[in-house]
């Protein structure tokens, strides 16, 4: 059960049940769709940018607990950040999961998002956690093509 709790931490389960910012924005300035063809997870991320600052952010879609919680916590973490801060957070988050960063410091700066560190031990589930992040990355870059994890 220990591996299991490592992956499905209470805060992840909580965000899965009650996802934050799970809504359509009234006037988004950016929008992107993400799709994982392997499992069928779909996410749409919308952002309202104002002077390079994320004033509002929301997501919709369907997916597993990991992808839904990741999207929910991502929106909570990025609201109020500038585009370049958001990109840095994305890089840190990705590094934490894919292991391109040794450890420690980056994860510490991720604050609450560090609960996803356990996903690293589940290679088949890493894409579930990163899908919403790749999607907002595309939205901020103004890409219109849907993002896929493959």
């Amino acid at each position: 059960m220990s591996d299991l709790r490592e992956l499905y931490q209470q805060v992840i389960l909580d965000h899965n049940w009650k996802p934050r910012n799970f809504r359509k924005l009234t006037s988004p300035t950016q929008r992107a769709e993400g799709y994982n063809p392997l499992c069928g997870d779909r996410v749409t991320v919308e952002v309202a940018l104002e002077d390079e600052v994320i004033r509002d952010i929301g997501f919709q879609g369907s997916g597993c607990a990991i992808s839904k919680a990741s999207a929910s916590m991502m929106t909570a973490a990025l609201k109020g950040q500038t585009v370049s801060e958001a990109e840095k957070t994305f890089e840190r988050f990705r590094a934490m999961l894919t292991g391109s960063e040794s450890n420690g410091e980056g994860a510490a700066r991720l604050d609450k998002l560090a609960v996803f560190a356990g996903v690293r031990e589940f290679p088949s589930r890493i894409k579930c956690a990163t899908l919403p992040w790749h999607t907002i990355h595309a939205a901020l870059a103004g890409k219109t093509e849907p993002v896929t994890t493959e």
Partner: protein
Amino acid sequence: MKMSWDVERIRKDFPILHEEVHGKPLVYLDNAATSQKPHVVIETLVDYYSKQNSNVHRGLHQLSERATEAYEGARTRIQRFLNAAHSREILFVRGTTEGINLVAQTYGRRAVGARDEVVITALEHHSNIVPWQMLCEEKQGRLRVVPINDAGEVDLEAYEALLGERTRLVAIAHVSNALGTILPVQRMIEAAHRRDIPVLVDGAQAVPHLRVDVQALDCDFYTFSGHKTYGPTGIGVLYGKTALLEQMPPFHGGGDMIKSVSFEKTVYNDLPYKFEAGTPHVAGAVGLGAALGYMEELGLERIAAYEHELLAYATARLSSLPGVRLIGTAREKAAVLSFVVEGVHAHDVGTILDLEGIAVRAGHHCAMPVMTRFDIAATTRASLALYNTREEIDLLARGLGKVREVFH
């Protein structure tokens, strides 16, 4: 029947079943994706490469004769297994996918023209959808899809209504990989033949579980994969009636499929070699022969009866679990339990079961239109084989209890 089926002894034939996963004994319930291999198949491969390996149909030397004999022996064994009229009607291919593509690209490209139709069902695996879509796109033909009901059964009235003047081919699964439905292929073939429409049957999920008699079915093409039927990967079979195979152009060009070649003209070889360009997967064919021999030794009727009983047990067991809903409840089913757990995505179910040592498939099972039909993104699928046990079903049920524990 129960008494004579010694599942513990049978399990000893499969070395991989004694592996551990995450420190727990493996419970392998992903047989519709691929089945495990008995010793006799593994040993046949070792033996072939140790004592017989050579190229087939060309050497004058002893080894080549041995390899050819083993390869053609496997063909004859498969002919008998399917009760085909001639061994020349048994073509070796890489698997079901290649078998279907072969028919689409040879028979299909000649038979289907603009506004012509190919009929499939809403239950098909992507490999019995996409080759026909590609063909229809190229020829400006039309793909027609027979609907299914909420239990996952084909609507036979709708099927017959779809068969028309422009139908050039019917291509249907024998058993649905996503839901386990056994299709009434005999009736469907009869209905098509009343209009002189040939029928291809995708038998990938049927051959491991049911006795298949291609002459009794009177199907025009039948195809299956070796790896789902206790044999090696990379080998499969396409059965076709002689008269059709003879009319068809070759699929691939190359060695072995010719009688003579000059730059002006090539004369193609006779059946079945016309369709077997290049050095075939000889070891795979021999291994598949051994796998089917293993099944025959156990007895196809006995395998079906045991699996039927196990499926009934598993169906009752899973139905009794709170929050678990079976998808696919056809009256005639084989070996597949597809289900959703209320409020939990199939991938989360799959991960939690994996940590318990239980291998299932989670996702759309290469049948996205089936998921759309039931308005779900994915299911968890437990698929049974002749070596699974009631105890394993109990472990699955206990694993699903853990899923609830985590998510509630």
